[in-house]
């Protein structure tokens, strides 16, 4: 009974915050409600028992996406473009939305009894996967090709984002110049939190092997630490093409493909991980992935090179 009322309350809050995000007046309000909504979704995942997903949703879905939307709102406001012109074609949109919602609701009740064959196959394969966390096993062993492509998708989004820079700004540092008062709160946070973030992020990756966590979740924490340092003015964002950063960006996919090729040449197939070496190879892949994810996510949030910076400091 207690559980049911909790579920009902959570569902109601989810829908209300989503409504406010979609139809609420004012773009800033909508973004704030979206972040609230994201945290509630993470709560729903925790309620379901899917802790890895809850971590990912909180960090990436609510956290990073929220930051992206806020930063975009700020940029638009600087140019007077944040005024909301309202909605149009509401009738058609309402029909479309209601139609899909009803289809999904109907489909839910039309679902057949879950087949047990997949679970059985998973259970018998898990001991050979090399890691104890079944989600990590799926992500980095059974369906590793998806994860490889996913890391490439992140990189593609970054290159795509760089293309939106103005030609005049191409050689500048990424993002807008940050001004943090030296000695102020942000600058202090920027000194204290990133090392903690580094530790925590690394821990999340390590713990993801057999417990909850993972490369994406850990990488996000690392990216947040990097972002904090950059926003506090303690570290300048790079220019496009800086050797160290480019190497960090491609390291994850390169290590991933290299391990896959070793599998093809030595172990009988692309991305094959024999049980004896699986854990070691997975940790190697995850380390590379985490570095790349951290770099890519940080640069995705920083954005394209925007304007001529004052030439503070050497290149």
């Amino acid at each position, binding site marked *: 009974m207690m559980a049911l009322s909790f579920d009902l309350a959570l569902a109601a809050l989810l829908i209300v915050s989503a409504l406010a995000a979609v139809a609420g007046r004012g773009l800033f309000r909508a973004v704030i409600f979206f972040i609230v909504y994201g945290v509630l979704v993470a709560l729903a995942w925790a309620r379901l028992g899917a802790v890895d997903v809850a971590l990912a949703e909180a960090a990436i879905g609510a956290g990073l996406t929220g930051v992206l939307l806020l930063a975009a709102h700020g940029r638009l406001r600087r140019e007077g473009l944040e005024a909301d012109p309202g909605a149009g074609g509401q009738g058609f949109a309402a029909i479309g939305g209601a139609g*899909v919602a009803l*289809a*999904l609701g*109907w*489909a839910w009740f*039309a*679902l*057949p009894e*879950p*087949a047990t*064959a*997949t679970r059985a*196959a*998973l259970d018998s*394969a898990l001991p050979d996967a090399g890691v104890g966390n079944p989600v990590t096993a*799926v992500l980095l*062993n*059974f*369906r*590793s*090709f*998806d994860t490889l*492509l*996913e890391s*490439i*998708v992140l*990189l*593609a*989004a970054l*290159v*795509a*984002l*760089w*293309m*939106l*820079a*103005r*030609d005049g700004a*191409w*050689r500048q540092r990424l993002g807008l110049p940050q001004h943090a008062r030296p000695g102020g709160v942000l600058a202090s946070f920027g000194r204290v939190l990133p090392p903690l973030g580094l530790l925590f992020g690394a821990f999340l990756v390590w713990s993801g092997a057999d417990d909850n966590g993972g490369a994406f979740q850990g990488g996000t924490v690392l990216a947040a630490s990097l972002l904090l340092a950059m926003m506090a003015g303690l570290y300048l964002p790079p220019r*496009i*093409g800086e*050797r160290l950063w*480019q*190497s960090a*960006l*491609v390291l994850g*996919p*390169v290590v991933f*493909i290299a391990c*896959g*090729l070793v*599998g*093809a040449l030595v172990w*009988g*197939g*692309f*991305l*094959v*991980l024999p049980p004896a070496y699986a854990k070691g190879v997975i940790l190697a892949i995850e380390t590379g992935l985490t570095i790349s994810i951290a770099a890519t996510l940080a640069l995705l949030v920083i954005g394209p090179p925007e304007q001529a910076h004052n030439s503070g400091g050497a290149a």
Partner: protein
Amino acid sequence: MTPLIWLVIAPLLGALAVLVVPARRMPAVALGAAVATLAAALALAAQVSGLGPQIVLLGGWTPPIGIVLKADGLGTAFAVMAALVMSGVALAARHELAPDKAGARAAYGFWPLMLLVWAALNTVFVSRDLFNLYVGLELLSLAAVALVALAGSREALAAAMRYLLFALTGSLLYLAGVVLTYSAHGTLDMAMLLARMPATGDGVALGLMTAGLMAKTALFPFHVWLPPAHAAAPAPASAMLSALVPKASLVILLRVWFEAMPDAAGDAALLVMAGLGAVAVIWGGLQALVQRKIKLVIAYSTVAQLGYFIIAFPLTGGDSAVKPWSAGAWTGMVFLALSHGLAKSAMFLVAGIWYSACGAQELRDLKGLARALPMSAFAFALAAVTLAGLPPSGGFTGKYLMMQAAFVAGLWPFALVMVAGGLLAAAYLYRPLAALLAKDESRACAPVSRARQAVPLALAAAAIILGVLSAAPFDFIQIGKPDAAVEGL
């Protein structure tokens, strides 16, 4: 290492390599990756034609746990076509997207984006896992949107924004269908789905996936994003976008309908889809007829041609009786898609030469160019032959097979639509051709090397050869063909 794996990995490694080398070395590295991928595609084709469909179980895991890659005739043919087009695009881009012509930014971004598009295409052509296809489609869309935005102009950014919205909506709809499918059947693998017990929700799942893929293939009425996007992109990018990108979602559509869930196809749905395809053929053709800009004519032509592919669906379907003419319709559509890819890319590359050498953007700027740049005019004419479906091109072979199937199936209105589409194509392609051959004095053109003009000529010629020597490709496409394509949906 099998060519199948190399086909997917080579462009990925190329994209990664291109991002770490200094900017002036990017074209060379990209061309190296292009050669490697082309070699892999040809090696795979040889392997498939000799040994039959090639299967790779990634990680050594079988479905429902693992992901399967399978190269059959259809996928390999598309992979070879894509490799030819991409090689041509890379050669053209060396000139037109050089830093001094297009700016440092565009010259930097084109190479990794091109290779990423290629990697995504190859993945989609060979993967048999519904979610893996989703990730591939997303990679394709993000890179393609960036290519549209490359010019940085107001039109380019607006077109890219519109494209992104349509692409993301399409992906979400497709993903919804995938989610329903896994939740009902516990597997994402197409072969396993074929053997499943049908569930009540399958029709909805198939409908959602189809709607999403139709949005990405720019099928009427979801086509509005395509003409401005393909017109605003630099010509080598437009060649990729028109010739190859819609083919990816088309291949997935084919696979989902014929290999995964042929039994979920309903008669009414098939006819509605084909009706939309018919409207696309006529609407696209009419719009192309009234355009003034060269690239818009070519882009609307793509809208029309994409409609043909959908018309093939009911020609292979209908009621549950076996349809012996289905094989012809299916093969005809594939022929049409392959020839379209080659011919359309040739057209856009020629348009690119005209723009970069002569500053020609509108049809009236083409006057007399046939004498100034005869090879490129000839390439355009050859491509037009294929697109209008005139013999002896690959376009003709495809249309002929489809029209034959239409008559035998008793769906002769679609045959009429195809004839009308061919006439419209001849009409809207006549206008640029007439301008090219006009006796007027042409604009001043910078000299263009023969080698540069030979690239689109080779692509257009390949489309013709596909029609002349059609027996071998015909047999090749049949390798690994799903039963539903033989017996009908």
